[in-house]
């Protein structure tokens, strides 16, 4: 280098150094007009209703500076009582999804052309008016299930256009359950159940903790009957070919062949009838039932179902001895032939056991009962061509994905003379085939009403500023159908006047009170809802049982707790939180029993080709005891060919090999097929699994105790130093023992924050984990990084299988234990983990230099290292909690016990010059837990709930024998034999 070049470079270098020293100025935008309910730095909460599934849970949306950053359950709401599942938590990722369509798209020869909302509305109006002029029935509409008001508006608009009322399409419409209710009880729709009052609960596949009817509601009701109460707890037995989360929570899961549930139900009817308990039934009916049931002797049932005779015997005894038994029918999907017969038999069984049906609530029916049965939906698509329908309106439905390819939906939508408008905010498989994609406002941005059950009015209100210019769908219909002469000039007025007319609210003032509470929750039952008397004759379909799948391989598509019917697949939280039972994230493995795997020479992670008469698919093998031998199963919801970056090409769609045929009587879809073949493809695919070991390897993490042992109540005082006899050591001054402790005792100031996790109440649903992602700005790492073991989750619901009986599962929420003798603190060279005066193990991000010593030394493996700076593609960054630092590359992070909430409680208490009350600090995980398995509080306060729980005989600490003195106290799971 010559002198001149050197000087040039030095000169340029110093100039750029001088210029770069001061960071560019940032801008603070002031509002133009300040809304009354917005204080910067403080959250405003708006009550609304969750629309992620048909259950209709009440939610509170937390708004900070105009954007929703978190949703939580509404404690006043009768359905979910303040709790929420992970799909509800992930509603935010619908609004802030980077693939959300912002303006209407019109299909032209060379692709999509963005058009303005007014243009799109004008086009819609033109098409509709033209179709209405051509003749009656030229406009068809398929909608997801919506509230009564919106449905009424759709119906009125379509009537104005001389067309039929809209068809309500839900992929999971419980056809067989509905038909069985109609045939046995003579009612239309879906009964709700008083699960909480049962003492013995038997489910023939109803996965009420995953997706069935109203999972959050049934989760809290289930724990009301199943939690330990005065030394007693209810019994829950699950009979199903596969172990869903619900089956994993049963006292006994009885694996049965797909389609043999009906045999079990009739077998039980036979046993009950033998006892002569059916005197209240009409004789003819009784005779008919008896006639069908008498074939199902104990041997026959065992043979058909594959349930071992001794277990079946025990099941019978439990049921006979029960005071208030309740039997639930089949699951969200149909697991084989005979689902209708199963549900009919279940209804009769309930009738025999309790002629008053006191655990059935015929008034508060689930709204999903309004959904059309599958045969009507297929008929609807067939008629599009036959009636030469000109305009098809699709409201937020994705039949192209949800229905098997043989259903002919694609062909029906592609017809040239049909103009298809998809009111969809995402480019999914169905929207791709539409001629106009019209994104309407999403539920958290809109006024509306949706009652998940009869008698409940649950309101929706805009909880945030609008991200797009999308109008409300109701307004679009009011304008397009009625123009200037509509019943009201906007949908909100339509909504309020409708509720006033129905007598649910009095006037505008009571409307304000209603939206503040989230709805009208007072019991209200119109007279017409009363149950009619039970039909005297038994349905003829009852005794037409076909054989269950016993020979060859069968295949079941399972409704997924994470993706429901597939609508959740574009929410990255739901992809990243692993399936609770298989603990696999992002992917869709096929579940194979070890025996089946052995028979076909399959190994874990082999990619196999599964072929049925209707198609084929490729998927990695996951070997598990959670399924009966001879059956393969796969979760529904992934494998989209479109639907945004998080869904497209991720996982596999089991619908590819399902049949388009329907169950002949109920008209419901078949989610199971027989006679599939499986062959190895030769490829291997690493599973994105989030577990180190399936079992506890003989160590003591997730403990359980049998009910009998617990009731004996003989717990000896422990005082040793080994895993077996180390005493429970509370993370307080009292836990200091000169003989055991190396470090000096710690005195905490006023508070010692601590959590109690009741493993007996935990159902493993991972709602806590999703809530944690939402609250604490945790990065989404994606499939490859999960395979590397670099997931960032702060709270992971671990799953441990019993080494002898792989179907006995214990769930263990694992989070930072905030130890008093924290191993992480003592190894950090820069003191980044800091022990707080209130017992919390702080991680000081800006101090951390990323040595990862702490993670190495943490026995609980709850510390997560940021190997990358995670990005939140716009506008997902708007969801970030402003009270929590976004961590960057090279920094260690972990659970903080939601320190931001503790600080908020401190501020509140200091302002009122008092101490923080018990229950005032509620971390995100504790808040959302559907079964209230988590309790948080101050261990220094002897009267706090957690202090009392920590004294109970079930309390233990995980790896307490390391003398870490963890602040998370676990309560042992209580096992009982059936």
């Amino acid at each position, binding site marked *: 280098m010559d002198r001149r070049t050197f000087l040039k470079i030095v000169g340029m270098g110093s100039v750029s150094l001088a210029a770069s020293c001061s960071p560019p100025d940032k801008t603070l*935008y002031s509002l133009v007009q300040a809304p009354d309910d917005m204080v910067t730095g403080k959250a405003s909460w708006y009550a609304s209703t969750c629309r992620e599934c048909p259950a209709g849970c009440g939610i509170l949306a937390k708004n900070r500076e105009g954007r929703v950053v978190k949703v939580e359950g509404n404690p006043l709401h009768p359905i979910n009582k303040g709790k929420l599942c992970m799909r509800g938590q992930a509603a935010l990722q619908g609004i802030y999804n980077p693939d959300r369509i912002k303006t209407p798209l019109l299909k032209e020869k060379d692709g999509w052309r963005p058009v303005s909302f007014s243009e799109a509305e004008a086009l819609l109006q033109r098409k509709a008016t033209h179709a209405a002029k051509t003749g009656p029935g030229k406009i068809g509409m398929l909608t997801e299930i919506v509230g009564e008001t919106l449905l009424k508006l759709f119906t009125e608009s379509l009537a104005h256009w001389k067309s039929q009322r809209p068809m309500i399409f839900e992929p999971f419409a419980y056809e067989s359950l509905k038909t069985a209710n109609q045939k046995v009880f003579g009612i239309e729709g879906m009964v709700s159940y008083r699960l909480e009052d049962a003492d013995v609960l038997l489910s023939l596949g109803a996965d009420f903790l995953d997706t069935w009817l109203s999972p959050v509601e049934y989760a809290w009701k289930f724990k009301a009957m199943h939690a330990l109460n005065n030394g007693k707890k209810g019994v829950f037995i699950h009979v199903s070919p596969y172990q869903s989360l619900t089956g994993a929570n049963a006292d006994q899961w009885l694996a049965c062949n797909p389609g043999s549930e009906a045999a079990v139900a009739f077998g039980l009817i036979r046993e009950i009838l033998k006892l002569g308990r059916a005197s209240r039934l009409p004789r003819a009916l009784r005779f008919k039932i008896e006639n069908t049931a008498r074939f199902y002797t104990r041997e026959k049932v065992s043979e058909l179902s594959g349930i071992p005779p001794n277990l079946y015997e025990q099941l019978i005894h439990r049921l006979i001895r029960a005071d208030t038994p309740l039997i639930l029918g089949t699951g969200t999907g149909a697991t084989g032939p005979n689902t209708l017969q199963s549900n009919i038999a279940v209804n009769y069984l309930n009738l025999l056991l309790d002629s008053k049906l006191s655990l059935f609530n015929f008034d508060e029916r689930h709204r999903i009962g309004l959904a059309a049965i599958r045969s009507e939906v297929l008929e609807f698509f067939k008629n599009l061509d036959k009636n030469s329908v000109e305009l098809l309106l699709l409201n937020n439905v994705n039949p192209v994905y949800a229905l098997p390819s043989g259903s002919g939906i694609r062909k029906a939508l592609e017809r040239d003379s049909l103009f298809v408008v998809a009111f969809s905010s995402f480019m999914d498989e169905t929207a791709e085939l539409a001629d106009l994609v019209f994104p309407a406002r999403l539920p958290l941005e809109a006024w509306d009403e949706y009652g998940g059950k009869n008698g409940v009015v649950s309101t929706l209100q805009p909880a945030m500023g609008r991200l797009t210019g999308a109008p409300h769908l109701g307004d679009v219909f009011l304008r397009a159908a009625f123009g200037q002469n509509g019943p009201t000039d906007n949908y909100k007025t339509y909504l309020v006047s409708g509720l006033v007319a129905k007598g649910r609210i009095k006037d505008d003032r009571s409307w304000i009170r209603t939206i503040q509470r989230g709805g009208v929750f007072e019991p209200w039952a119109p007279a017409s809802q009363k149950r009619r008397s039970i039909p005297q004759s038994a349905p003829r379909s009852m005794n037409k049982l076909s054989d269950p799948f016993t020979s060859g391989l069968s295949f079941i598509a399972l409704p997924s707790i994470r993706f429901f019917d597939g609508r959740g697949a574009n929410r990255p939280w739901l992809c990243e939180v692993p399936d609770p039972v298989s603990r696999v994230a992002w992917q869709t493995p096929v579940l194979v029993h070890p025996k089946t795997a052995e028979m076909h020479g399959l190994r874990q992670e082999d990619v196999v080709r599964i072929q049925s008469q209707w198609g084929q698919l490729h998927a990695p093998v996951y070997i598990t005891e959670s399924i009966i031998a001879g059956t393969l199963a796969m979760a529904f919801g992934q494998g989209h060919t479109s639907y945004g970056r998080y869904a497209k090409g991720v996982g596999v769609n089991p619908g590819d090999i399902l049949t388009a045929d329907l169950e002949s009587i109920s008209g419901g879809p078949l989610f199971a097929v027989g006679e599939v073949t499986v062959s190895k493809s030769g490829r291997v695919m690493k599973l994105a699994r989030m577990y180190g070991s399936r079992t506890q390897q003989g160590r003591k993490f997730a403990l359980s105790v049998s009910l009998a042992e617990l009731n004996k109540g003989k717990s000896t005082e422990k005082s040793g130093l080994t895993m077996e006899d180390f005493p429970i050591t509370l993370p307080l001054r009292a836990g200091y023992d000169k003989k055991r402790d190396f470090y000096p005792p710690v005195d905490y100031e006023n508070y010692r924050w601590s959590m109690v996790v009741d493993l007996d109440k935990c159902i493993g649903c991972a709602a806590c984990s999703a809530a944690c992602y939402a609250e604490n700005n945790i990065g989404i790492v994606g499939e490859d990084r999960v395979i590397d073991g670099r997931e960032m989750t702060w709270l992971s619901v671990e799953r441990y299988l019993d080494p002898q009986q792989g179907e006995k599962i214990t769930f263990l929420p694992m989070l930072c234990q905030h130890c008093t003798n924290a191993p992480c603190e003592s190894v950090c060279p820069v003191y980044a983990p800091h022990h707080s005066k209130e017992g919390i193990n702080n991680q000081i991000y800006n101090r951390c230099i990323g040595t990862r010593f702490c993670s190495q030394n943490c026995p609980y493996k709850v510390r997560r290292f940021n190997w990358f700076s995670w990005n939140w593609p716009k506008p997902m960054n708007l969801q970030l909690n402003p009270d929590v630092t976004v961590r960057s590359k090279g920094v260690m992070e972990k659970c903080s016990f939601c320190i931001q909430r*503790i600080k908020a409680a401190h501020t509140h208490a200091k302002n009122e010059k008092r101490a923080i009350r018990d229950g005032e600090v509620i971390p995100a995980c504790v808040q959302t837990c559907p079964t209230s398995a988590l309790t948080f509080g101050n261990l220094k306060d002897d009267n706090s709930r957690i202090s009392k729980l920590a004294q109970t005989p079930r309390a233990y600490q995980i790896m307490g024998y390391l003398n870490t003195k963890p602040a998370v106290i676990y309560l042992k799971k209580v096992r009982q034999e059936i």
Partner: protein
Amino acid sequence: MGIQTLRRNISPILLTLGSLFFVAVFIYFFYTSPATQIGPEQPIPFSHAVHSGVKQIQCRFCHPYVDYSNHPGLPPVEKCLYCHKYIIANHPWIKKEHMYFNTNTPTPWVEINYVAEHVLFNHQRHIRSDIVCEQCHGRVETRHRLDKKIWRMGICYECHKAKGANLDCWLACHS
């Protein structure tokens, strides 16, 4: 080296000294002169000296959330116009303010108080502990344009220590 050599090279030497002098003057005026301490230019030259000093408007009129939120709050555009609809309504800068209001544009004020992103400063705690605004922000009523200030941990720490306030990491400032 004698006087001869010096004399012979007088012009290059003077030139060097001269340039050194100019560089020094430039550096002084560019970086350290008092005139550079006036803070960044704002979209509207709002003067704290006029509003807070001459007109004696209370801080909380414009920063109303200071005693019940983390953030003190910035005045919305409409608040400026409460008065300026009548007072010097036709001044060019006030016309700009009207333009912001009429076109529904938020005013892009330039930030002057910088706190690291991993720190959450809680205004209400300080105000309620009887720390007056001036203690940290100085006498804003004497300044037309406020200085840019990057807040460092030292000042927090010193004060917290002196007053016996919370010195816990997460419970105090970080989270």
